Structures are given as structure tokens and as C-alpha cells.
């Protein structure tokens, strides 16, 4: 995966989201050791301090836990925590953006819901 270096999102947030995705995908399971700041720095070609900031966000949210001298590990209910966080924050924000854009385009509520339904059906059909 490449980071979106010019993007709106700070790199350390992209790092923490990437790690969350790795946990959601099952690439890292409970109590498994996650990448160190130096491995992340090497993988993404970024300063180790930036990578550490990405890790620390997840440690603060208790998605990761620290073992002194050993590194950071995945918390047992990390997956559930990520899912509920993304639902309450990321998804809500995206929905708000959709609603604002719909208002701008004078798309009615029913029309918008219809568009969402179609998208869901199309994906189910794939």
C-alpha cells in the first residue's frame, strides 16, 4: 500500500488507519506483535517519529498495548473496538458529507436513499 502523501490526512493518521485495516483484515490477531516504528518507517519511507505517533494513537485508544522492551501488541478485542469506532466516527462523517453534497445538488431525501439502495444491490450482485 502507498500512503497518500499529498492528501488531506496527516501521515500518522494514515499509518494508524492502515494498521487498523491490517487488524480488520486479520493480518494481525489478538496478542500478536505489530510492526515497530522502525519497520513502519522503512515500509512507508517516513520518519520513525511519525510512525511512532501513528502507533501511539492506537495505544491511547487501547487497540494496541505496550510491553516494555518488547514492542506493541494487538489487544484482544481490538477488532470490535475498531469497528465500533469507525461506525461512530468515520461512517457518520462520510454520511454527513454525502448529505451536504446532496443538499448542494438539490437531491431529495428519497432520491438519495434510492441511490444508496441501488449501490447496495449492485454490490450484493457482484
Amino acid at each position, binding site marked *: 500500500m502507498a500512503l497518500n*502523501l*499529498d492528501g*488531506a490526512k*496527516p*501521515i*500518522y493518521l494514515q499509518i494508524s488507519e492502515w494498521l487498523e485495516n491490517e487488524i480488520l483484515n486479520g493480518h494481525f490477531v489478538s496478542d500478536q506483535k505489530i510492526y515497530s516504528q*522502525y519497520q513502519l*518507517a*522503512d515500509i512507508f*519511507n*517516513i*520518519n*520513525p*517519529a*511519525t510512525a511512532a*505517533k501513528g502507533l501511539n494513537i492506537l495505544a491511547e485508544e487501547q487497540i494496541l498495548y505496550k510491553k516494555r522492551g518488547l514492542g506493541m501488541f494487538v489487544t484482544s478485542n481490538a477488532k470490535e473496538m475498531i469497528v465500533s469506532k469507525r461506525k461512530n466516527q468515520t461512517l457518520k462523517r462520510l454520511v454527513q458529507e454525502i448529505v*451536504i453534497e446532496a443538499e448542494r445538488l438539490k437531491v431529495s431525501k428519497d432520491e438519495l436513499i434510492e441511490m444508496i439502495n441501488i449501490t447496495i444491490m449492485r454490490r450484493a450482485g457482484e
Partner: protein
Amino acid sequence: MSVIECKGLTKAFGGTKALDNFSCKIEGNTITGLIGRNGAGKTTLLKIIAGYLQQTTGEITVFSERPFNDLTVSANVIFVHDQLNLPTALNLKEILDVMASFYQNWDRELAQRLFDYFSLHPMQYYNGLSKGMKSTFNMIVGLAARTPLTLFDEPTTGMDAAVRKDFYRALLKDYIAYPRTIILSSHHLDEIEDLLEDILLMQRGQMLLHMSVTDLKEWAVGLEGRTVAVKEWTKNREVIFSKNGGLDQTYVVVRNDFTAAELQKVKLAGIKTLPVSSSDLCVYLTSKTKGGIDDVFNKG
């Protein structure tokens, strides 16, 4: 522990002050980007840190020593710039051998591998190299010396894009393996910012900003939208940059001291909030007028 401490550093050349009451602290094991316009005092600062020049007034310590004419400092610091005075009678291989005898941590193998990778020839002479190849050779010296403090002044002058990319990668990899204090001056902030931990922005011999790159990215915010709406939100703030774009559209950069609730209101007012890239921000902060080059062409 701070590796470098400067307090009220001033360096005058004739009537002009290249450094003017400059103070800062550089922490150990960090990569700091030294950014500023031409003539901001970057090279003078690096020369004083390396002990090449003595300040006019003020104090500086490097590894707790005064750097000027100090052997400890010169053994622990390498200053790489495009006017390195390398012996013209020695070929590149011989120069590397001399370097190896001077710098205690010199990594012979790394020097050799980089030397081969960039297709330099041991029998070549430094003065016979192109501008880009000179910079490449300097970079190899700077990395292989592995001194506790490494200063790169515009290291990528003349390098093509591929070599620049390789250099940044090599610098990062060697830093990860052997953490040390590195200062990198550059005009290409957009190219180096991901490598950096801190940015030190200089203007007219003074320090304008010194903060982590991640903080700098959130330090300012761009607001874009209808002029009236944007003006409403920026009227009591210091405008860092503003530009009129299109019909009744304004883009304004201000300090990002909005609360989350305020940002929400801004968005609902139909104003886009955009991140300001570090390199744009540094240009805005160090430009002499608020408008920039466009003002030159705006008569009346």
C-alpha cells in the same frame, strides 16, 4: 539531551547580519529540516555549528563544546556542502581512505556499496565530476562518516530526481539503523518532509518556527469559499495568505485555532477547509508581501 544550543547568536558580515539574535535547541537523534529563502542565514548557521565560522555575538554549544576551532566538535560533526575543499591530487578512492582515517565511525562497506551503486569510478578525480556527481559523492561521504552530528547543506544540488529519491531513502535507512542527529537544509521541503521529524524555518537570520512536521501540518488551515462567508470567519484572525480565485471565491490561510465545533460551523457555511502543505506554508510565512508574485503584475 540537546546536541546543539544557540542563544542570541548573531553573525555580521560587514553591515548585514546573516544571523540576528538566533536561538534554538536541536535534540539528539532527530532529523531536522532547515528551511528558509535564499539568504535567510541557513548556511551561516551550519558553518557556525560546524565550527567553520565564529559568531559575532551570542553563544553556541555543540555537544556542550564551543564549536569554533574545537577538535571534539570537528571529529564528531561532518558538514556536507557543495563547496567541499577536497584535495585535487587524490582520486576518489584515496579521498575515501583519508576520510576513513579521520572519522571514527566511518563505514567502509557502506561507502563502497554506495560508490558502486551510483557508478562512481575509484580512479576519477573530484574536480572532474559533474555537479550532480559531486553532490552524489558528497552524500556518500556524509552518510558513511556516520558522525553523531551530520549537517547537509543543500545536498541534492544538481542531482537528478532518481538520485535524489535514492539519497532520501539511503539517508532514512541509515538513520533507522544508526540513529544520529541530522540537519538537512533544502529548498525542496515537499520532497524531504516525510523524512523529517522537525522543521526549523528561518527568515532574515532569525528563527520563525521550530516544531515537529506533524504539528506544522496542523498549524494552519486553508478556507475556501464565497468571499463574504470566508471574510466573516477570518476577520479577527491573522491572515497568512489570501488569494482570490474565480468569481467571488476566496482562499485564505489562517492559524488553525478553530475548535471542532467551529470547524463544523465553517463547513456548514459552505466553506471548504483544506490542509496547507508544509512547503506552501513555509513559502507564505517567509514571503515579503501577503500577496506574492501576483502583486507584481497587479497594477492599481
